[in-house]
Structures are given as structure tokens and as C-alpha cells.
């Protein structure tokens, strides 16, 4: 088969599935819907594997599928760029998506919106693939917004749930703030490069490296800095970086499978992918890179803190996702793009695993998500338990597991970075290791070990009881069906081994080749390479590094607090009530935004409407109307009804006209 056909099959197969399940859902039924969509994604995965092999054989592709719009020479196209970066993303997206599709059969089993759900997640897969396969900024933006749309639809999937439809609106609008910057960045690219095609833009970038633009009178900015920062605003929205992070925790209102697929493994990493893709531009601006590193460091550390006090099982994982996205962003700032993408990949597997495992627990707990009402589930749910443990160990960076390789390399890269902000970022990511280990195992111990507290849960009024209620309350919890545990087991494999297997070719080999560009001024990767002596050596060497012991300390403290002395964290939260309240209230960002932006916009809108439109403009118009009325009353006096009055007026008129014409000639 022609390779171009194969490229087309990758996104179009899930789209076909989405259309079948979405438009003909009633016709094909529940089984038909999941067969169609799963088949679509499976075909897409197989095609992605074939494409990946082709890329490994050294073949890349950059070409147009169709011309979207043309204005003479200026062409906007839909096209594919198939290179090591996109090929890897295609694999991750289709693989996780397939697992989530299968898992959904079990998780959404009793949901009335079964077909709709499958249609959405397949549509998401299509959109995400179009995003990563794009060869130009326009299509990138298409995919960017399309995944945002599907995310919106899926967060609000249970549309009668007030918190869900609030969360999806919030997610969409916060993302739109990011897109606002993103589209301006794209505009600057088009204005200066005359094209939105990646290859053309990247080739031209060095020539424009020292170009400045005057955004504000008398203060020239480097063009690349402005473009880089504006594009990164988009990434901050999509990848939930501080201060646009507020939507991601709320997105947990959506069903768990999409939290795994969209809000952990794929969509939220689009920003990371984008910056890595734009490495030829970002390499030209240290200001942009430094900003990225600072934002990433803040996100990595401060969002991690929030994970410590969460009691909702999904929200703990969500804050962990935020924090890990921060790690990836820090790596981008350090010019370690390949490391960021590497962490993106390992994270996709173990975080999808953790979310799906959380979902499995949620099923067993009859959709109670509060970890204070769990405990001791290890013996009831052995597969969920062991896979959760693997996911958590991978997350905290246990040597030889996937997360270890990616996270450890990020920390090293930041340490080696020469950016002035790197010292600060280094401490943030280092402390973050301890925090991650602590909250991950706090959750792990509360869920799987200790006393069984779920018997008390039934009186607990949980507002999150949605339409997803499986309806069989009571009894002891039991392991979920194979469609749920199967994907957990499959995802556990890469969570264990993918880092060990791929670190060498991806980071220190020539896997990425020309797909990622690093300037000689940022030699972080070269320096890392000098310290790297193979994956085994790296794992063994770990016990001599600080991060390892920080992680051990985090796990140890969590074990001590939540298995031995649960009274201590309780006492601490009372002792440091303000600090606790700060974390529980997420630094009051939601309140601040809701007051300043949502409230402010409505106040301003009201003011403009009543003060501007109604009082001033309509006031003037109605005033004019009244004036017309008054003048009309005045003229009414002339309408006497006497014929000789009219005749007289007519005579005067004729006289005036004749005079005028006479003067004209």
C-alpha cells in the first residue's frame, strides 16, 4: 500500500468510527457502536505501527492532502508531516486511545449515552491525530481547537450535572484565553514568514533571529521572543500551566476514561508537543525559554502541593498530572525537548494507567470517589492493586521503571541548563520529587491499605453520583470485569519497561534526528550524553542521587502518616490551619478568576449596555425622535385645511424654484 494512503487511514479510521457511533448510534446499537469505534482505533493503531516502522527505516514525509484555501500565492493547506516526533505521538495516541476504548465498555456499561460517548472519544482520537500529524500551523490550530471541543463535550458528558456543565464551560473559556495568544502568535508567523508551513517557517527562522518588532512605542522586542511567548500562551491553556491551570482539576467532572485519555495522556500534552515541534523557533529566544522554564517550575511544584490535601481520588491524580506537565515544560525550557517528549510518552502510559485504575476503584466503590471512605482494597481488587502500585512507582521515579528515566533526566537537564532561572527551577523539580512521592503514596495507602472504611460510605452524601450510577450498592467490593482490568494490565507493561527500552535511542541516539532542533548555545543534551552510560548504569547509579532518597522519604512519610499515625496529618492540618486552607482552596485561584474575570466581564457588559447603548445612544435617538415629534406638531399648525392657505404656500414655492433655476442658467 502507498504510504500516503496509510497516513490518511490513521486519522480517518477513528473518524469513520465516530461518525458511525454518533450519527447511526441508534441503528447500530451499543455493541455496534463499540465495535465500530474500537475497530477504527485498532486500524489506526496498526497503521501507526506500520508508519512508525517506515520512519525507523529512515523515511519521512511532508506533503499536502488538500488545499484548504488559496489567495493567489498564499496557500493554506491541510497536510501531514510524518517524522520521528509525529510517528511517536501517533503511536502513543492510538495505543492509549485503544486501551481507553476497551475500558469504556466496562466503565460506561450502564450509561444511556453509551454510543455518544464512543463517538466522542473516537472523534477526539481523530482530532488529536490531525494535530500531531500536521505540517502547518493552521491545521495545528484546527486540531488544537477540535480536541478542545471534544474535551468540552466530554467534561459535560453528564449534562444534567451542574458541576459538570460548569466545569466544561470553564475549561473551554480558559483554553480560549490560551488560544487568544496562540492565534496572535500564528498571525505573527504568517505576517513575518509569509507562510504557515512548518518547513518554510523553520528554514526562514535563523534569518529572522535578530529581527525586532515594536509592540509598544520605543520598546523593541525580539520577534522570536514575541512569537514564542504568544504560542506558549496557547500551550499554557492546553497543557494547563500556571496561571491557566484552573480548568484541569475541574475537568475531572467528566467520566474517568476521558480523564485518562484526554486530561492525562494526550490532549493536555499537546502544548508540550507543540513547543517541541517549534524547537527551531524557541531555540532563537532565551527569554521565551526562560519564561517557559519558570512557568513549568511553578506548575510542577505548586500544583504538586495541592495534590497533598485532595480527598477525591481523581483530583489527586489530576494535580499529579498538572505537576508532571510542569516537569515537561521545565524540560522544554532547558532546551531538552526530546526529554520533555520522552516524559510525555512515559507519563502517557503510567498516568493513563493510574486514571483507569482509579476508575476501576470508583466502579468498585459505586462511584464514591472520596479516598477517606476506601482502604484495604488490595485483597478485593488484586489486579487493580498491582497495576496501581506499578503506576505509582513509575510516577515517583523508581529506578528502572519508565518514569524514573524521564524524570531523572529532566532534573539532570535543568541542573545543566545555563539559563539564569535554571537554579530556581532545579530546586522546584527536586522538591517536587518528594511531594510527588508523598501524595501518590498517601493516595495509594488510603485506597489499598489500612482499615476498610467503605462500609461507612453509604451515609456519605456524594454529589458526584451522576447518571453513571451502576446501581448495585452494598456488599463487599470486587474486582472489575476484564474489559476494565485488561487495559490496566496492558498499560502496566510500558509503565514498567518503556523508559528502560527507549531512553538510549530517544535521548542519546539519533531517533529524533532533524525533527527536534537544538542550538549549539544550549548544549544541555550533549552534556547529558557525556554522563550517560546506558540505562542499566543509570538505574544502578540512582541510589547515589538525591531524587531517589527524596522519593523514598516521600513514600516513607506517607506510610508513617497514613498507615501508622493518621492522627499526625490531622493534627498538622489543624496546627497549620491557614496553610491547609490555602491548599484546600487551591490558592483561591478559582475565586479570584471568578470574581475578577467572570464577574468583571459581566459588570462591564452591564455597564456598557445600560450606560452606553440604552442611556447614551438610545437616549440620543429617542431624543431625536421627540424632536421630530415637536417639529411635526409645529408644522401641523400649517396644515390648516383651508385650500387658499395651501395655494398660497404653493405659489411661494413655485416662485422660489423659478428664481433658483433662473439663477442657475
Amino acid at each position, binding site marked *: 500500500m502507498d504510504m500516503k494512503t496509510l497516513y490518511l487511514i490513521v486519522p480517518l479510521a477513528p473518524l469513520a468510527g465516530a461518525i458511525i457511533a454518533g450519527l447511526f448510534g441508534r441503528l447500530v446499537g451499543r455493541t455496534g457502536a463499540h465495535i465500530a469505534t474500537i475497530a477504527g482505533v485498532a486500524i489506526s493503531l496498526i497503521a501507526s505501527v506500520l508508519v512508525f516502522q517506515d520512519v525507523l527505516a529512515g523515511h519521512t514525509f511532508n506533503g499536502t492532502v*488538500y*488545499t*484548504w*484555501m*488559496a*489567495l*493567489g500565492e*498564499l496557500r493554506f493547506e491541510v497536510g501531514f508531516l510524518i517524522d520521528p516526533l509525529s510517528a511517536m505521538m501517533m503511536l502513543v495516541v492510538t495505543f492509549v486511545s485503544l486501551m481507553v476504548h476497551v475500558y469504556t465498555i466496562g466503565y460506561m456499561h450502564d450509561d444511556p449515552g453509551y454510543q455518544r460517548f464512543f463517538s466522542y472519544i473516537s472523534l477526539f482520537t481523530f482530532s488529536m491525530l490531525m494535530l500531531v500529524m500536521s505540517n502547518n500551523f*493552521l491545521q495545528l*490550530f*484546527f486540531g488544537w*481547537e*477540535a480536541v478542545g*471541543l471534544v474535551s*468540552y*463535550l466530554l467534561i*459535560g458528558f453528564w*449534562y*444534567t450535572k*451542574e458541576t459538570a*456543565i*460548569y466545569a466544561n*464551560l470553564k475549561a*473551554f*473559556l480558559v483554553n*480560549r*484565553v490560551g*488560544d*487568544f495568544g496562540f*492565534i*496572535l502568535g*500564528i*498571525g*505573527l508567523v*504568517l*505576517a513575518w514568514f509569509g507562510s504557515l508551513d512548518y518547513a518554510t517557517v523553520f528554514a526562514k527562522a535563523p534569518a529572522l533571529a535578530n529581527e525586532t*518588532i515594536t*509592540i509598544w512605542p520605543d520598546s523593541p522586542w525580539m520577534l522570536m521572543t514575541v512569537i514564542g511567548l504568544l504560542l506558549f500562551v496557547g500551550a499554557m491553556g492546553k497543557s494547563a500551566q500556571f496561571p491557566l491551570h484552573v480548568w484541569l482539576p475541574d475537568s475531572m467532572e467528566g467520566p474517568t476514561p476521558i480523564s485518562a485519555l484526554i486530561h492525562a495522556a494526550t490532549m493536555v500534552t499537546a502544548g508540550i508537543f507543540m513547543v517541541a515541534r517549534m524547537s527551531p523557533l524557541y531555540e532563537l529566544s532565551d527569554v521565551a525559554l526562560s519564561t517557559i522554564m519558570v512557568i513549568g517550575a511553578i506548575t510542577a511544584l505548586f500544583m504538586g502541593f495541592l495534590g497533598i490535601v485532595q480527598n477525591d481520588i481523581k483530583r489527586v491524580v489530576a494535580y499529579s498530572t498538572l505537576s508532571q506537565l510542569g516537569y515537561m515544560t521545565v524540560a522544554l525550557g532547558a532546551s531538552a525537548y526530546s526529554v520533555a517528549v520522552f516524559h510525555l510518552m512515559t507519563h502517557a502510559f503510567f498516568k493513563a494507567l493510574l486514571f483507569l485504575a482509579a476508575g476501576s476503584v470508583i466502579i468498585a466503590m459505586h462511584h464514591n470517589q472520596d479516598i477517606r471512605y476506601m482502604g484495604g482494597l488490595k485483597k478485593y481488587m488484586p489486579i487493580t492493586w498491582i497495576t496501581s502500585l506499578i503506576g505509582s512507582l513509575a510516577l515517583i521515579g523508581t529506578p528502572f521503571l519508565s518514569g524514573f528515566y524521564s524524570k531523572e533526566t529532566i532534573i539532570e537537564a535543568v541542573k545543566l541548563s545555563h539559563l539564569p532561572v535554571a537554579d530556581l527551577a532545579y530546586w522546584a523539580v527536586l522538591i517536587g520529587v518528594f511531594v510527588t512521592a508523598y501524595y501518590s503514596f498517601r493516595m495509594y495507602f488510603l485506597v489499598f491499605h489500612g482499615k476498610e472504611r467503605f462500609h461507612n460510605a453509604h451515609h456519605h452524601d456524594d454529589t458526584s453520583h451522576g447518571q453513571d450510577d451502576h446501581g448495585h450498592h452494598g456488599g463487599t467490593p470486587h474486582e472489575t470485569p476484564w474489559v476494565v482490568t485488561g487495559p490496566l494490565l496492558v498499560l502496566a507493561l510500558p509503565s514498567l519497561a518503556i523508559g528502560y527500552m527507549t531512553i538510549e535511542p530517544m535521548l542519546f541516539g539519533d531517533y529524533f534526528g532533524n525533527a527536534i532542533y537544538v542550538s549549539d548555545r544550549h548544549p544541555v543534551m550533549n552534556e547529558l550524553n557525556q554522563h550517560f552510560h546506558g540505562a542499566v548504569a543509570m538505574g544502578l547509579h540512582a541510589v547515589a542521587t538525591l531524587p531517589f532518597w527524596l522519593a523514598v522519604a516521600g513514600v516513607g512519610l506517607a506510610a508513617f502518616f497514613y498507615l501508622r499515625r493518621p492522627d499526625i496529618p490531622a493534627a498538622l492540618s489543624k496546627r497549620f490551619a491557614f496553610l491547609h486552607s490555602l491548599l484546600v482552596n487551591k490558592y483561591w485561584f478559582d475565586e479570584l478568576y471568578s470574581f475578577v474575570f467572570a464577574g468583571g*466581564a*459581566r459588570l*462591564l*457588559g*452591564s455597564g*456598557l*449596555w445600560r450606560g*452606553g*447603548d440604552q442611556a447614551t*445612544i*438610545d437616549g440620543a*435617538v429617542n431624543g*431625536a*425622535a421627540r424632536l*421630530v415629534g415637536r417639529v411635526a406638531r409645529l408644522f401641523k399648525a400649517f396644515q390648516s385645511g383651508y385650500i387658499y392657505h395651501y395655494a398660497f404656500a404653493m405659489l411661494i414655492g413655485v416662485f422660489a424654484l423659478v428664481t433658483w433655476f433662473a439663477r442657475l442658467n
Partner: protein
Amino acid sequence: MSDHILSLVVWVPIVAGVLVLATGSDRNAPLARWLALAGSLLGLIVALPLATGFDTSTSAMQFVEKAPWIPTFNVFYHLGVDGISMPLVLLNSFTTVLVVIAGWQVIQDRVAQYMAAFLIMSGLINGAFTALDGILFYVFFEGMLIPLYLIVGVWGGPNRVYAAFKFFLYTLAGSLLMLVSFVYLYYQSGGSFDIQTWHKTTLGMTAQTLMFLAFLLAFGVKVPMWPVHTWLPDAHVEAPTGGSVVLAAITLKVGAYGFLRFILPIVPDASHELAWLVIALSLIAVAYIGLVALVQADMKKLIAYSSIAHMGFVTLGFFLFNPLGWEGGLVQMISHGFVSAALFLCIGVMYDRLHSRQIKDYGGLVNRMPVFAAFFMLFAMANAGLPATSGFVGEFMVIMAAVEVNFWYAFVAATTLIFGAAYTLWMYKRVVFGTVTNPHVEHLSDINARETLLMAVLAACVLGMGLYPKPFTDVMHVSVVDLLAHVGQSKLP
């Protein structure tokens, strides 16, 4: 016949309208409806050769017809289309079919008159889009308002007289000033009402400036531009659904069309000189009106304000003086035709069932009307400018064009990404999502076959144009580039 395509495009709907009117009282309502549908379809069919036979390689007027009308004053019956007007004629003929179908069951009172008004208006609007003679244009331009007044005034809501009067007052001042400008141009051009001759007529800066302001008022009211926009929300609120659809989809476009056919080519120097004014007003429309739309409690008012904001992109694009901006403005006009028509139809669907346009009376509609909710979602997203819908294309092009001219223009314009999404989706959330709180909503039925047909056709247009806008820009490009080159040359004596 093929030499008279434009005459057919103008007169077929008008003749059909007169025939519908002849069916008389409501006893013959079914006949009036079918006749109106046949007339509107015929009107669309005779317009199709404009698309199929259009030569995209020239900016010259095509399908030209010219005959003396009032020889004493050199007034001609002169019709023709270029890449700018042709898509608008098709949009108008297409929309007419939709409004006839939309009024099928809803209008039970004076059916023949209602249908006739729309058909006659359709013909007159086609006349305004195709007229190449100033007086002919003026007759069509003013004439189309009469059916519109009647539609609002007869089939409108309780406050229809105020709305119609306000509209009248706004329009009057501008129209008279435009007529004065036409007479002045007649003398300056050596006794011609030919619009293309006017394009070549040299004019002094003072005359250009005065005429610019006169035209700006005449066409700005129609667009409508801030601050002469307040008639639109009132007119929409009072108008029946069909009236709102035509008002939003077509009538506003006549105003914007005036910018390209009259203002920019006839007074190019003043246009360049005063571009800042139009750009400022357009940006106010985008940001100010976006915020005002946010706080509307009435859905029709909300969409009306959203229309003003979206039309702000059109006028902004025109005064950026580059092909991307102009074609973006034109694409935005057509897209807005689809999207606003669809949204007003959606509100009509709800109003027909619940007799309320207030957002607070709804909530949880998706529980009872899932198919409707899906269509409404698509159109809401198109209104918010989501890529792959037509709403994205024009906004994208204009923002791109604005960055090239001045970053801050683009900055303000791009706020539509946030405001547009905020007011549209917040309304959608309150109307469609959630649990049913109003017991009346509990008894609503989903859209019927007729309504589904309308929604599906518009959905196809919105998606089709969003996924493949190339045919539209192909039609416009040569005309736009040549006109831009013309506008780039000074006309000062």
C-alpha cells in the same frame, strides 16, 4: 434567456411574490405556501448559473445587462456581478427558500402577504447586489426596506411599532445623504449614474471626505456599526423568525456590500485617510458589543448583539487594505449568513414551542430535544468561531490580516475568541444543559422533519464552508485583488 440571467434573478422572486399575493385571503393559505416555495426554489435555480458559469479569472462585471431606463438623466437598467457580489446573490436566493420553509406552519395569519413580502424582498435585494447604476441601486436599496418594515410591523411582536420606527429613523438620515452624494457624483462624472464610471471619477479631498461620511452613515447603519447599531436588537426581538433570518443573513450584508462597491472605490483617498475611524468603530463593535452580548437575558437580543460583533470583523477586514482582510470580510459575510440564520431558526424553534425568548425560562432542553440540541451545539460553536465551521474562516483571515497591519488591531479583534465563546456557550449552557426546571420544557417535542431539514441544510453549509472554503475565495480573489489595486490609486485631481 441566458443573456438575462440577472434579470431573472431579480424579477422571478418579485413576480412570484405578486402571484402569491394574488391568492388572497387565508382560505388559500396552502396554495400560497406551495406557490411561495415554488417561487423561491425557482429563484434559486435561476441563480445557479451564476455560480456554474462564473469566470474566476477576471474582475470584469459578468452576466451584464444594460438598457436605457430614464434617458433624460442617463439612468440605465444596468445589472452585472463580479466575484464580490455573485456569492451574495446566491446567499440571498438560498436564504429565501429557507425562510419560506421556516414560516410554513408558524405563520397562520395573512400567509400570502407574509410569503409575498419575503419573495419581493428577495428580488429587491438581488437587485441591490447586482445594480450597476446608482439610481437603480438606490431604488432597490430603499425598496427592500418596505417589505422588511411590513414584516416587522405586521407579523412582529408587541413592541413592533417602536422597533420599526427606530429602524426607519436610523435609515432615513443615511439614505438621504447617500442620495445627495449620488447627485453630486452625477454632476462630477459629467452626467452619469454609472457606478463603474464613478469609480474612475476624480474627486477632491473635501468632497471625498464629506461623501465618505455620508456613505459611512448610510451603509454603517445597515451593517450595523457601533454606535448606530441599537435599532438591530430591537428589530430582531420584534421580528418574526423569518424576518430575523433575512435581517441578519442578508440585509446587514447589503450595508457591508456598500463599503466595497461605493465607499472604498469611489472615495479611496478619504477611505485611507479615515481608515482609523472605521477600524476603531469595528474594534469597539468586537469588544464592547461582545461584552454587552454577555449580559443579555433575551436570546434574540444576544444573537443580535453577536451579529454586530461579527459584522465588526467585516468592516475591520475591509479597512486593512489587503486581500486577506477583504476576502476574510467577504467570507465572514457569507458565513454569518449561514450561522446567524441557523441561530435565529434555532431560537424560532424554541419560541414556537414555549413562546419565550428568555434564557431563564429554559434549561435542560437536551433532555427533551436531543437532536435539536446537537444542531444547536454545532451552530453555537460556529458562532464561537470554532475551526472546521464557517465561523472560523473569516475571523481567522481578518485576524491574520490585522496582525500584518498593526498587532494591536489583531489583539483587540482576537478577543472575540474569548467573548464569542463566552456569550454563546454560556447561553447554550443555561438553555440546553442541566436538569429541566421549567415544567413546560418537560413537554417539549424534538424538532420535526421540516425543522430537521432546515437545520441539516444549514449544518451542511456551515461545515462545508469550514472544511473547504477554497471555492469561495477562488471566486472572490481576482475581483478583490483588482479592486484593491484600484483603491490603492489616488483619485485626487
